[in-house]
């Protein structure tokens, strides 16, 4: 895309679920660890021990926020690695006990692709369906369990439609049957309360760049006693659970982001919920033939996902971008397949509605006037695209 299309003054970012900008305090917190406290934390001398101390502090902060102990947290390169580590790690370590895994049909690809890989390696995977709101039924989990089940992995909240799963109920079923339970908390950690004890989970994935921290750093909570085969293999870092020289700057930034979340989360949740509901209501009112995807209430504070009939997602995204609004779609446009979002299909949307989806995700730096602006611009964009659409035309006939 050439320059001219950004000539508008406004630039409104409404794709916080894809990634967030670093909070400026996070950027600041990272600075000492690039060139000053740069030592390899595994080393004995002062340069290394200083880095190690910073790492210990960061780990402590994150653990505390989760209700975990520091030894239960390992740092990874992001949510994808945390999920790969949890899934493959538990599967390989538990192979002598069984080969069955239960997950849902709306997981992030880092979970579902790991499952597909494991299927090739001889594991059996049950992909649970969800209801029209995108919710997993705990009863289905119970019924899927066999005496070979070694792991259940259900995401805390879905990244596309924001549906928050009944994790506590599922975790307690898993616990009863002594099966490890993992949840992908990438979209919830530091956004809504996440406490590993309350939730009752054994493993939990996090990613810093979804919470105003840097990209390329994440963490995995592994409850004491849970056995995993390391995924990233090599040196003795992270108590031999995750090799590679530790990304201290990233870790320090992550910890700062968590510290900020701790401070801001309550208010932010309220603000985002308000803006979210305003945007949903506004779209449904102002745009004919639009519908909300996901659950109206059991939903991430910042998530708005709608389908706008007769027009396609990518062309909406591009038109909105021309007006300075950044959002995303579950249409197939950005992926190498032609299939639209597996999540939207899983909640029962027909293909055309899945291709017509638009996701706005609201975050820390969103203002109410941004929402107003979207509500002003979106109907025009819809009108323009519908005027081009053969489907809309047909309908009118």
């Amino acid at each position, binding site marked *: 895309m050439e320059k001219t299309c950004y000539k508008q003054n406004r630039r409104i970012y409404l794709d916080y679920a894809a990634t967030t900008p670093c909070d400026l305090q996070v950027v600041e917190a990272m600075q000492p660890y690039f060139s000053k406290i740069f030592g390899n934390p595994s080393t004995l001398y002062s340069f290394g021990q200083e880095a190690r101390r910073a790492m210990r502090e960061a780990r402590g902060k994150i653990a505390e926020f989760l209700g975990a102990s520091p030894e239960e947290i390992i740092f990874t390169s992001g949510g994808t690695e945390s999920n790969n580590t949890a899934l493959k790690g538990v599967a390989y370590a538990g192979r002598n006990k069984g080969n069955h895994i239960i997950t849902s049909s709306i997981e992030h690809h880092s979970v579902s692709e790991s499952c597909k890989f494991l299927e090739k390696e001889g594991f059996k995977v049950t992909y649970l369906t969800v209801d029209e709101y995108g919710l997993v039924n705990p009863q289905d989990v119970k019924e899927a369990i066999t005496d070979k089940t070694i792991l259940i992995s259900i995401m805390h909240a879905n990244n596309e439609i924001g549906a928050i799963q009944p994790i506590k109920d599922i975790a307690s079923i898993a616990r009863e049957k002594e099966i490890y339970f993992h949840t992908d908390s990438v979209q919830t950690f530091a956004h809504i309360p996440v406490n590993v004890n309350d939730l009752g989970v054994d493993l939990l994935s996090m990613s810093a760049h979804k919470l105003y921290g840097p990209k390329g750093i994440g963490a995995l909570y592994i409850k004491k006693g849970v056995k995993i085969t390391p995924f990233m293999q090599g040196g003795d870092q992270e108590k031999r659970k995750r090799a590679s020289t530790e990304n201290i700057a990233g870790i320090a930034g992550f910890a700062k982001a968590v510290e900020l979340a701790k401070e801001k989360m309550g208010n932010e949740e309220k603000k985002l919920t308000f803006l979210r509901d305003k945007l949903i209501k506004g779209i449904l009112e102002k745009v004919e033939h639009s519908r909300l995807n996901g659950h109206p209430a059991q939903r991430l504070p910042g998530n708005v996902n709608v389908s706008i009939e007769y027009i396609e997602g990518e062309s909406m995204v*591009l038109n909105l971008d021309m007006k300075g609004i950044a959002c995303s779609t579950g249409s*197939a*446009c950005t992926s190498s397949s*032609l299939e639209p979002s597996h999540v939207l299909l899983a909640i029962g949307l027909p293909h055309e509605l899945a291709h017509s989806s638009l996701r706005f995700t609201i975050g820390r730096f969103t203002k109410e006037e941004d929402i107003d602006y979207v509500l002003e611009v979106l109907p025009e964009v819809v009108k323009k695209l519908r005027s081009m659409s053969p*489907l809309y035309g047909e309908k009118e006939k």
Partner: protein
Amino acid sequence: MEGYSTKVMEHFRNPRNVGKIENPDGVGHVGNPVCGDIMELYIKVKDDIITDAKFKTFGCGAAIATSSMVTELVKGKSINEALTISNKAVTEALGGLPSIKMHCSVLAEEALKSAIDDYFKNHRSRE
């Protein structure tokens, strides 16, 4: 995804020849909602020359841009010339497409062929 070229974005922003032609000489319908792209291409033919072309498209940026481009390319061409317009020609005229969007140019070619077929069916038998 790779970004779109300037030309693609230009056609996407200001698509040429949007709409229907009343009493067209040929109409092509291609694509389906499953794959996420539907194109309708209308042509008006006079003395073997395509005098007008319009489209309606449900689809991504590339689908709209290729629709726009193919209508531009085809106008003023004879039917036989129009039949030689390949997806490659459309792509090239747009300054290239991201590899995962190549199917849109194929769709545009098919829409054109389908409209011409329709014209043949309506107006004369192909030799």
